[in-house]
């Protein structure tokens, strides 16, 4: 040690004096501080820029999407006019009648009910509210969403005693009326370029003024399925369920398979050429564009295994394949981060390799594995491209009751609405769907963070 000291002093001492040396250090110090400030500044700029873009994104989406959660709704008193509802009694099953006979009779009755002119009832109601309105029936039909006559019909068929009575309904205004009232269409445009006729526009304004049209929370956005004929009633329920099924499939398949593969590769597999190849392959798979997984799904699951088109089952399988590399890589790196001393402690006590892994290594990597799983699932939840190739961009007007039914998915629904021709109305809808998707992802992440902090506390 002493020897070392004397050599350094000697070599430095021969070249420069102590004073000069201090000067040189001071000079280099300035440059070092400048570099540090520069780096500091760059870092802050990057963070501010990133946050700024996120803020712009959120502002834009919220500002566009929030109005869609409020929708124009018309309150009307509907008189179930016996003159219009020219129907016999609702059939009841008579004693001795076979169920098939009865259901044929009932279907006949329901078919007859479907053919009635329910819009007449609505027209009469509106004309009662605005007696001075002189436009024709089409103008009235134009401001009420076309799906709403079925609301009236269904109310009657389920309760035929309504005949001759009056009941209050809160009905959705049509997308065109909603646009006009919200001002999402330029009010100064000439008649030819307006979606509603002059009479219909005047009627909508009139009803709004009278308080018969109100803006209320659009709960049907969450309870209805997509609709093309009645855009005002289009909702996300079908896409939401489709996404939910796919997420469940990804969680059930990708997480256990991914974690098991990672544990095997990291803890048990011999290190040889084969495992090297597997490792490289997994890393490469993580970088494969997601649309390629869609092609694979179409070729294998649909073409070969003959699974149904547009089914969340196929979507879930494709997303599982896409998510596996992410989960495997992240789990392996968290396993690799476990201190070797912990492994040695377990092995030194005579624990077998399996006991070491399952009693000691895995428990402390749970937070890491959980993060890996959430990143993977969130990625899968937001994926659109592969779903387009397995037919999930089809228009589906049902809530899927099982993963084998046809369904859409939230990101695909966003894509479909984005391309809808009724831009004025669907621009807000698209952003509303984005808000729902983002909300879902944020809550997923919140759950993960909560679970992770609980797991970490337990240590």
């Amino acid at each position, binding site marked *: 040690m002493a020897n070392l000291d004397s050599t350094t002093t000697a070599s430095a001492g021969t070249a420069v004096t102590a004073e000069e040396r201090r000067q040189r250090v001071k000079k280099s110090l300035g440059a070092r501080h400048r570099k540090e400030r520069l780096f500091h500044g760059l870092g802050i700029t990057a963070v501010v820029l990133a946050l700024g873009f996120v803020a712009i994104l959120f502002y834009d989406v919220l500002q566009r999407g929030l109005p869609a959660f409020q929708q124009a709704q018309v309150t009307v008193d509907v008189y179930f006019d016996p003159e219009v509802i020219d129907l016999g009694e609702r059939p009841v099953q008579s004693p001795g009648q076979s169920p098939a006979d009865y259901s044929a009779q009932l279907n006949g009755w329901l078919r007859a009910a479907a053919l009635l002119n329910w819009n007449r009832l609505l027209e009469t109601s509106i004309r009662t509210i605005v007696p001075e309105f002189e436009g024709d029936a089409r103008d009235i039909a134009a401001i009420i969403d076309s799906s709403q006559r079925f609301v009236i019909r269904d109310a009657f068929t389920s309760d035929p005693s309504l005949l001759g009575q009056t009941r209050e309904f809160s009905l959705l205004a049509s997308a065109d009326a909603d646009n006009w009232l919200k001002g999402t269409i330029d009010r100064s445009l000439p008649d030819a370029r307006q979606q509603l006729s002059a009479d219909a526009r005047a009627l909508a304004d009139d009803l709004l003024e009278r308080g018969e049209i109100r803006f209320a929370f659009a709960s049907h956005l969450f309870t209805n399925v997509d609709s093309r004929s009645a855009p005002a009633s289009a909702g996300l329920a079908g896409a939401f369920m489709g996404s939910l099924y796919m997420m469940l499939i990804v969680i059930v398949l990708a997480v256990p398979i991914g974690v098991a593969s990672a544990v095997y590769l990291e803890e048990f597999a011999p290190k040889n050429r084969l495992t090297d190849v597997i490792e490289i392959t997994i890393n490469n798979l993580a970088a494969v564009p997601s649309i390629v997984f869609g092609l694979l799904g179409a070729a294998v699951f649909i073409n070969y295994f003959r699974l149904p088109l547009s089914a969340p089952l196929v979507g879930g399988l494709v997303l599982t394949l896409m998510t596996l590399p992410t989960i495997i890589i992240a789990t392996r790196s968290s396993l690799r981060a476990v201190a070797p*001393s*912990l492994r040695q402690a377990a092995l030194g006590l005579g*624990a077998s390799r399996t006991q070491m892994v399952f009693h000691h290594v895995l428990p402390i990597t749970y937070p890491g594995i959980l993060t890996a799983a959430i990143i993977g699932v969130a990625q899968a939840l937001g994926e659109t491209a592969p779903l387009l190739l397995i037919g999930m961009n089809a228009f589906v007007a049902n809530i899927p009751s099982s993963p084998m039914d046809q369904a859409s998915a939230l990101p695909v629904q966003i894509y479909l609405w984005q391309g809808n021709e009724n831009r004025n109305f669907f621009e807000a809808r698209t952003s509303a769907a984005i808000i729902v998707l983002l909300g879902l992802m944020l809550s997923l992440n919140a759950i993960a963070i909560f679970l992770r902090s609980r797991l970490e506390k337990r240590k």
Partner: protein
Amino acid sequence: MASGMNFPHAELTPNAEQATDHGAAELAQRSVRVRASDVSVFYGAKQALFDVSVDIPDRAVTAFIGPSGCGKSTFLRCINRMNDTIEGARVGGKIELDGEDIYDPSLDVVELRARVGMVFQKPNPFPKSIFENVAYGPRIHGLIRTKAEAEEVVVSSLRKAGLFNEVKDRLHEPGTGLSGGQQQRLCIARAIAVGPEVILMDEPCSALDPIATAIIEELIDELRENYTIIIVTHSMQQAARVSQKTAFFHLGNLVEEGPTDKIFTNPEDKRTQDYITGRFG
């Protein structure tokens, strides 16, 4: 600090000196527990240990000393086959525990490690409660079945490791919350709980302060009543204080071995003399 000094084995200190004084005579009476013959270790193509042959006496402390990288830890890790866990490590020669070849393919390494316990350089308790740390070994080896048995083993092991009085009120708190010296005694308790015949200690005090070191050394001296202990140490004073037999390693060779008094007072090899007088290392 007061509680650290007030450990229960203070009265053992004179015994330790006595033991060292009569080390040579005592050693002669001891049977051989572990016998190594021509042990060589390779890490890949590099040979780390060259033909080491040494006998480890029963119920005594044997110290391995030598400069860094001399192969003493490598040799220690051969005795419970911890080298098996290192990729590319190969062991040649023969190590017998009670006359049984521990590298025999029919021998189960898990059973071997139940018989040969190990304490590591850095205290490495499991991130679990103190109780669980000690009960884990007996549990995986099927030594305890009921909760009462577990409690008995945990208490007696903690007592033997001189830790019980310090932790009896917080057995269910995490073992990682203890001080470094307490953690190392917990690791010793954990090793004892399995009931090993041999305990390997790989520089057990190098991460501890002098007071914690003194407590561990007392403990080692007490433990040799019942266990065969092999300790790797960088501190020659420690080797002189706690061991009855010393082996000096240099550049992967066993240079000299013998009763501790002899190695420290009258070494035969020039390299041993240079090392213990501080001329290198």
